[in-house]
């Protein structure tokens, strides 16, 4: 594919990414929303984070994998514990990456 076509594709990607990011906040920021809507929106952060994370952990190769070969799943345990106990976000990310690197080194 030539670079000009790639550039035009990137412009298209920009438009379809920006519109869903901007429309709701522009349309809803000044409205007083009904209480159940506010409550529903309050569940969105936790729901969307879990919806993005869980498939990456239990099915990184797009099939359910609870075996010991699934490093992403088992590395989540120390990552979770470090984040919970130390409240250190950086520590959690380093722990997770370290566990995955070591797991691959020794078990694959």
């Amino acid at each position, binding site marked *: 594919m030539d670079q000009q076509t790639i550039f035009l*594709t990137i412009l298209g990607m920009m438009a379809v990414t920006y519109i869903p*990011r901007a429309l709701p906040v522009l349309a809803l920021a000044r409205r007083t929303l009904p209480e159940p809507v506010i409550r529903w929106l309050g569940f969105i952060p936790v729901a*969307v984070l879990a919806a993005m994370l869980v498939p990456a*952990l239990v099915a990184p190769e797009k099939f359910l994998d609870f075996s010991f070969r699934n490093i992403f799943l088992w590395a989540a345990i120390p990552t979770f514990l470090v984040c919970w106990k130390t409240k250190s976000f950086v520590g959690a*990310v380093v*722990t997770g990456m370290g566990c995955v690197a070591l797991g691959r080194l020794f078990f694959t």
Partner: protein
Amino acid sequence: MNSATLSTTDPAESPLASAFRQALPIILGYVPVGFAYGVLAQKSGLSALNTLLMSALVYAGSAQLIAVGLFAAAANPLAIVATTFVVNLRHLLMSAALAPYLGRWNKTRLALFAAQMTDETFALHANRFARNETGPAETFGINVIAQSAWVGSTALGLAASTLITDVRPIGLDYALPAMFIGLLLGQLKSRQHLVVAVTAGALSTALMLAGLGQSHVLAATVIAATIGLGVHAWTSRRSS
């Protein structure tokens, strides 16, 4: 996670210093992914300029990595744009979730804010705004620092693409899952939130395995948040 500890506001701290402190986990999460994107884009036939422009203009990690794979496979440009739309449609819900906190911002400010809303800046701002920390200097400081880290690490990946053949041995591909574990932990504010998280995670996985392509995240989020409303109605009726 530590957004609670990280954000104990020190009155002497400047908004920029505070923004940097709060954005630090995002930077750590972005650097390996932006780096990997830079390496992969180079290997997929994108020019250095186009690689950087995508990070600056689209600014959406997973969509960019998917797009690079499609470019490498010489997919139809319209298919690439359509895939990007579906992958990023979840931001519609994130944008709506932050809207109730931003009633005092003018349209220009809101439009600029939306351009830099990613999964990670959204999760951070969702925690901040809930504590009434909606200061524009700090908010835009975080966003500009985060995007600079993204574009900067893309440039690093470009520069190193001839040296690096595989990012997997150093565990770089686990930076974002690890970050999401931390962000999710910070969002588990009540038993209802836990129910929503478990539901969303299970549903999203099931829908993905059922072959729902890229919309499993969106569908699972909407259904789980709605179930959360039901759980709330049920528990408040029982306790009253």
